[in-house]
């Protein structure tokens, strides 16, 4: 069973990155990386090959939907969870049709992230 997920947090907010990191650390995730916009996330995704990405939508330089589309062209396996306050039906449709794994409406709760991680770990272990 695969125990250690490699996770990339992409959000332009320092606060959100800090909070997500703290929740992930409580979930015993050891490899956590951060990107402050979509363009950096694409680079990081190439370099680090993460298992899971938390992706904000509204960001400078490159928004989360654009980053999602690009990352999916070279890494089809990565699970990309959109985490945004703007969960409008347009955003949801666009994210899911471009291969997003899930969508979390902000503010991100401790429980929603914990449940998601548990679900992913279960899937990973079933796939091995």
């Amino acid at each position: 069973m695969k125990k250690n997920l490699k996770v990339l947090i992409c959000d332009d907010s320092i606060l959100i990155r800090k909070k997500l990191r703290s929740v992930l650390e409580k979930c015993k995730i050891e490899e956590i990386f951060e990107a402050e916009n979509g363009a950096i996330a694409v680079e990081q995704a190439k370099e680090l090959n993460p298992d899971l990405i938390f992706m904000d939508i509204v960001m400078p330089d490159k928004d989360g939907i654009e980053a999602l589309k690009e990352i999916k062209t070279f890494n089809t396996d990565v699970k990309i969870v959109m985490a945004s306050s703007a969960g409008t039906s347009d955003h949801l449709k666009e994210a899911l049709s471009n291969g997003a794994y899930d969508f979390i409406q902000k503010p991100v709760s401790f429980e929603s992230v914990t449940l998601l991680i548990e679900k992913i770990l279960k899937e990973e272990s079933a796939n091995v």
Partner: protein
Amino acid sequence: MFSQYFGHYLLNRGLITREQLADSLEFQKTVHVKFGVIAVDEGFMTTAQVEEVHEKQRQMDKRFGEIAVELGYLTEEQVESLISHQKQSHLYLAQALVDRGYMTIDEFGAALNEYKKDNSLSDEQFEAIRNGNVDTLVEKILVAYDEEKAAKYGKYLSLFAKNMIRFIDDQVYLEVSETNNVTPGNWLIKQDVVGTSPLFTGISINDETLLYVASIYAEEELTEIDALAKDAVSEFLNLHNGIYLVNMSNWGTELDMKPQQVFESATVSGDLFQVTVNTSKGAFQVVLSDNPSNIAVESATGTQTV
């Protein structure tokens, strides 16, 4: 808002005197709600356990939550939940009444349960009552304006007040400011809503109130205007605008928004609508315009995108 309401319930039930209520409502402005009060209020700990943790705190430099977890009285999840409950204003009143010796924590908890029972309220309805007051409040402040303007900004402001109550401070009170220029409030945080109903949205705020709002939203005490403090207020605006977009989307209007920007000592001018948001620890301005292309933002120090 709610503490005034609940305070009068305690008064009518003869649980406190008018003088004690007035004194506590005044005193609660300076109160910092202690973890122990909330832990008992939530039914996570007994008063004896709280006392034991307080005793340990006198001996070691650790937070209440840390010690309570070490002693096995609270789980990490309960600590998280208590941090978010620290914002509820009935707890400010509880702390004030306890600190002033007018009621014990147990008596307050019992009275709160009685209140919910008397009014047949579930926790969700309890929240709704507090939010319900906001719509009335916003309608009231916009009554002097023509219907078109009131309808345009009413939805946004009502939601803003609810999000203030939900995430920051339920002592919030809104007033319309009669001016077309925003005086520099040290910081301007702006975000453009784009689409068929575009909107310029901004918060003009001074150092002290910024630190207050940022500390509550970030759930940690921030004492310096650093990147995290500015980001916290900026993220609150982003969260609120995101929820506004979701509401508009549910009503059939799809909108989008741009990343927020932070300006130092900025002046905003143009066809704008300004509302003063009073919190229990200071005021700030919400600046709106449904004609964003008409709005000019000037800042001596330039822009910083967050």
